[in-house]
């Protein structure tokens, strides 16, 4: 029996949900607010919430000092590129594991996931040296390669879970209906898998967009994406909070907008398997 929801309980739940929502969103909100303050107001004590002189000065300065669009373009190439290549490899892999599992399929999946348990810094030196010797340092291709490899296990796992949800009987029905392998994939499997592939794509673009460890360590100027752009405004003494905030806001804005428009897919992506 469903529990009766009294108006009081409903009010408490609503307040709680809003509270948690605001708590999670607050750092982003504060970053955006700070980006419109002057440097002095940004470090004012007590902090100023809304009652300050709103200014766009930080954005102007940031755009004057560094080329936002070059970093933006690097981010797009690296995140979209690594995700697309990852999907290209992962779709057949997940397909095979979901529909023609072997005795070792589960082990292979676990083994792939186990690579995510290794702290990235543990392999920084060898990868750095390999990149140096092959001339991949500070190149977009290098970052696409490394981010593809880093996110591949997650892409395979997500797709595997989606493909597993597609009932085998439907594929058998297609076979009985006279579909060969090509028609089966084209007309039946792909349309049913598209929602899963789409949310995997979105989630991985976000992961790659915000990836900071490898992008910071393997780039200098040419291939630096927005993460490096933000980092260039963080000084140890913390004197440029307002400019740092402006840079951060500019860096997260595109992905935030993309996320907003694809909310439905993303929620499904993040809760896959849990809700039907």
């Amino acid at each position: 029996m469903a529990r009766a929801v009294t108006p009081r309980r409903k009010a408490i739940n609503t307040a709680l949900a809003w509270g948690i929502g605001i708590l999670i969103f607050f750092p982003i909100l504060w970053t955006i607010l700070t980006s419109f303050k002057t440097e002095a107001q940004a470090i004012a004590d007590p902090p100023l919430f809304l009652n300050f002189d709103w200014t766009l000065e930080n954005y102007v300065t940031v755009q004057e000092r560094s080329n936002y669009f070059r970093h933006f373009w690097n981010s797009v190439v690296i995140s979209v590129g690594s995700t697309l290549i990852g999907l290209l490899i992962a779709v057949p892999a997940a397909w095979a594991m979901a529909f023609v599992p072997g005795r070792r399929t589960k082990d292979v999946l676990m083994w792939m996931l186990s690579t995510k348990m290794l702290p990235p810094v543990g392999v920084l030196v060898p990868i750095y040296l390999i990149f140096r010797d092959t001339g991949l340092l500070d190149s977009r291709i290098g970052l696409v390669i490394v981010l593809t490899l880093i996110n591949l296990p997650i892409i395979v796992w997500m797709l595997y879970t989606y493909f597993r949800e597609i009932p085998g009987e439907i594929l058998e029905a297609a076979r009985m209906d006279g579909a060969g392998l090509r028609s089966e994939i084209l007309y039946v499997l792909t349309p049913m898998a598209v929602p899963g592939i789409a949310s995997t794509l979105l989630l991985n673009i976000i992961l790659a967009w915000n990836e900071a460890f490898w992008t910071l360590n393997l780039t200098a100027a040419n291939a630096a994406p927005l993460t490096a752009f933000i980092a260039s405004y963080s000084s140890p003494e913390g004197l440029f909070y307002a400019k740092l905030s402006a840079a951060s806001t500019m860096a997260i804005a595109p992905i935030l907008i993309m996320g907003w428009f694809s909310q439905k897919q993303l929620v499904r992506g993040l809760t896959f398997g849990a809700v039907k």
Partner: protein
Amino acid sequence: MGQITLDKVTKRFGEVEVIPPLDLEIGDGEFTVFVGPSGCGKSTLLRLIAGLEDVSGGQIRIDGRDATETPPARRGLAMVFQSYALYPHMSVRKNIAFPMKMAGVPEDEQKRRIEGAAKALNLTDYLDRRPGQLSGGQRQRVAIGRAIVREPAAFLFDEPLSNLDAALRVGMRLEISELHERLKTTMIYVTHDQVEAMTMADKIVVLRAGHVEQVGSPLELYRSPRNLFVAGFIGSPKMNFIEGEEAGRHDARTIGIRPEHVSVDPSGPWSGVVAVSEHLGSDTFLHIHETGLCDVMTVRAGGELDVHHGDRVRLSPDLSKLHRFDGQGLRIA
């Protein structure tokens, strides 16, 4: 045409032999039902015929041609699945059209056949809906429509009614029987429900652990079951089995008598105490204890019989309908 021959067909999953060498002949236009308890291999057998499973040995012939290695898409058979297995992203119209699209049937011919099938199956108003917007019975009809339009050599049904509620099941059962009367196409139907088997089949194949226990028409199986298993499986309620002295009197290890062949009769030779009486209106089923013959004897009596829990009754078997079985459980003629 749709004559299907199984010649020493075997199926092994690893070390386990689920279908030992099996021979079976399904005639053109026949409605054949595979029936048996769950795990008896009836669905596996159907999937072997469909080509969805590879045989481990033997040969499957469709219309005289060896189809053992033919992929399912090219066997010319249509299948209706238990879960319906409709394409969720396609409208009803596209679902039904799919096999024709695969076969390269011209557009106007496709349209004609879709309309024909929709009319026959009462789906005309639903052609533009998605499967998710249909009820269970409607989905099942779409699955049947998808099978009809390709004009297959034979239809394969894998427990198609088991996801429907009881009332709908009776209705669909009749529809499938009518469909068979109309199309005269070979149909193979898998079920664990012996009522479905009895009411629909021209020929019943009773399976147990991959073995064919008996093949015959419903009434043949009812009248002369080859062994105890078939005797107990076919007929509802189940046949009563009696061992011991009473069986010895008929020169048998076990005798069987169906509930409908025992009557309440004040001068009858057997007696017992009524434990439960189920009054259905048309019939009364009595479950009788303390007969000294078997644990519980089921008796089918007249509809308005006034007998209740605790009453002692005398019973009279119709000896001409008695079944006798030997020590191996085989029928004694």
